[in-house]
């Protein structure tokens, strides 16, 4: 079949769309970061990836086994529910570190230029305090209830709930580091508003 010029152009557009979608999905989110920062992000990423891959495998294997072997794993649902907090906390930590955390920029961008740096630093300090409080409260929570045993998996529930401590403490430390960085930049003459 001979294609018209318009159709050939359409094919080229389809190829470009494919390339753009793949580039978007496969881009390195840590490009340009130092070795330490990359190392931290990659470690947490690995925990999250392990959690997600386990969830996929367990849910898929459980459903397949139910249809193929007429039996399912009694521990599957509980195990997946215990893994989910680790995935969630890894995701939050990465969002904080990579600056993709959900927030509203609109009003901040409308603020007078001179005040933005101060607001940004105050917000970083506030985030750090709230998350550190969450880590402390979660620590008490795990200390009090973490010894309860999960019914089917046979592990203490603290294995799952301790994700709250690590996630909140990690995000608090990330904000503390960002605050120190913004403060230093401000002292050196910048406004630190890109924090």
């Amino acid at each position, binding site marked *: *079949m001979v294609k*018209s010029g*318009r*159709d050939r152009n*359409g*094919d080229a*557009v*389809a*190829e470009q*769309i*494919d390339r*753009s*979608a*793949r580039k*978007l*999905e*496969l881009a*390195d*989110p840590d490009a340009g970061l130092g070795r330490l920062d990359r190392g931290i992000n990659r470690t947490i*990423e690995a925990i*999250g*990836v392990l959690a*997600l*891959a386990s*969830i*996929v495998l367990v*849910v*898929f294997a459980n*459903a397949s086994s139910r249809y193929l072997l007429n039996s399912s794993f009694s521990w599957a*649902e509980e195990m*997946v*529910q215990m893994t*989910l907090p680790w*995935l*969630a906390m*890894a*995701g*939050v930590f*990465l969002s*904080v570190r*990579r600056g*993709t*955390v*959900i*927030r*509203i920029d*609109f009003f901040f961008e409308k603020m007078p230029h001179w005040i933005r740096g101060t*607001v*940004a630093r*105050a917000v970083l300090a506030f*985030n750090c305090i*709230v*998350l550190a409080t*969450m880590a402390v409260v979660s620590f*008490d*929570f795990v200390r*009090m209830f973490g010894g309860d045993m999960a019914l089917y998996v046979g592990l203490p529930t603290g294995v*799952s709930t301790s994700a*709250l401590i690590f*996630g909140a403490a990690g995000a608090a430390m990330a904000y503390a580091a960002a605050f120190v960085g913004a403060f230093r930049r401000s002292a050196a003459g910048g406004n630190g508003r890109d924090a």
Partner: protein
Amino acid sequence: MTPLAGAGLSILLLCGLLVFRVPMVVAIMAVVFFGNFMSGAWMMTLPQTMMSGIGRFVLIALPLFVLAGGLMNAGGISGRIFEFARALVGAFRGGLAHVNVVTSMFFGGMIGSSTADLAGTGSIVIPEMKKNGYPADFSAALTASSAGIGPMIPPSSPMILYSAMTGVSLGALFLAGLIPGLLLGLSQMMIVAWLAKRRGWKAYADFSLDEVYRTGRRAILSFGMPLIIVGGLVIGVFTPSEAGAFAVVYALVLAMFVHRVLDLGGLYRVLANAVQLSGELLIIVGLSFALGSALTNARVPEFLVEFIDMVTVVDSMYLRILALLVLAILAGMILDPLIPVLMPIILPTLIAYDVNLVHFGVLMVIAVVIGQVTPPMAIALIIAGKIADVDQIRVMRANTPFFLGIVCFLLIAIAIPGLATWLPNLVRN
């Protein structure tokens, strides 16, 4: 201080923190701590309620569908879908604009993320539309509005969140969104056809059955994904979470072994992206349960019922639903994600009014879509405007016909609940 005044103060604090660019996760956490402190409640109710929120089994579907969408996006389906859409509707007057809408409809059934549609497909289609003589502001407005179809068609992240917050069957919600999603796409095509006739836009491709067959054959495996999800739920083979796991495996096989465009390194990156994208949403859902519980204790839902009864002068269920949706749309202009934050506040009100929660779920998703194209946030319009390199105000003005279209569509969907409830009822019976 009365509990209601305390709750009002908490809501004000939440808005204030968000205005100052405090991340949503931290803002909700701070408000719950503040509420607990003011009411003398036990601080440990926060991690306790949060864990029970995250532990909802239906939420497992969220990272699974996000992962499946990422695999499909990286697995070379976008170009195939575009080709097929071009073969189907490219010959219409204003062909490329129609192709844009149809691509978004197909995309919604496979990826379910309007941002992926906008940033991936939009970054190529908008310049192509400009090259073909469409005004830049119109190109951006259409791409932003059509990307909103994705959240209506299963698998839809807002519907997973709604199901987790309300306990409504996710399968029923997925089915309920199908017909409204397709109708929303058709309504946008009608607007495009009207504008194309007025402005003399040309066709984008010649129609040929051979081309439909060729591109359809190349794209057919991509359509296996919505088939697994919808088919599996209709027949009752899968729970939604299991449908998510099967969708992941299907997308993985397609990307790695059929299209052969994804290696192990790429797979790892897609997994990591899914962790980052879904992790924060899961925490927001968990925190929203804690927020909802604090506001319910402060009798906010009762106040809301009284308020709605006061503003809806006539005793009509439709007016009450409309009043709640106006509230949702107003909140959606600022809040994203809207559903986890708003649902704990209005769910008791919906139950008090005996509103069909499946119907309302679809209406809420339309409200979310409206929020994405309504200032001041208008995230979809902002992204599309940046791609088109055109002033935001012009994009918003060019979006007027699509905005009016979706508002009319919302009113029709309120008036005719069957649009949403017919398919799930049919399957259930």
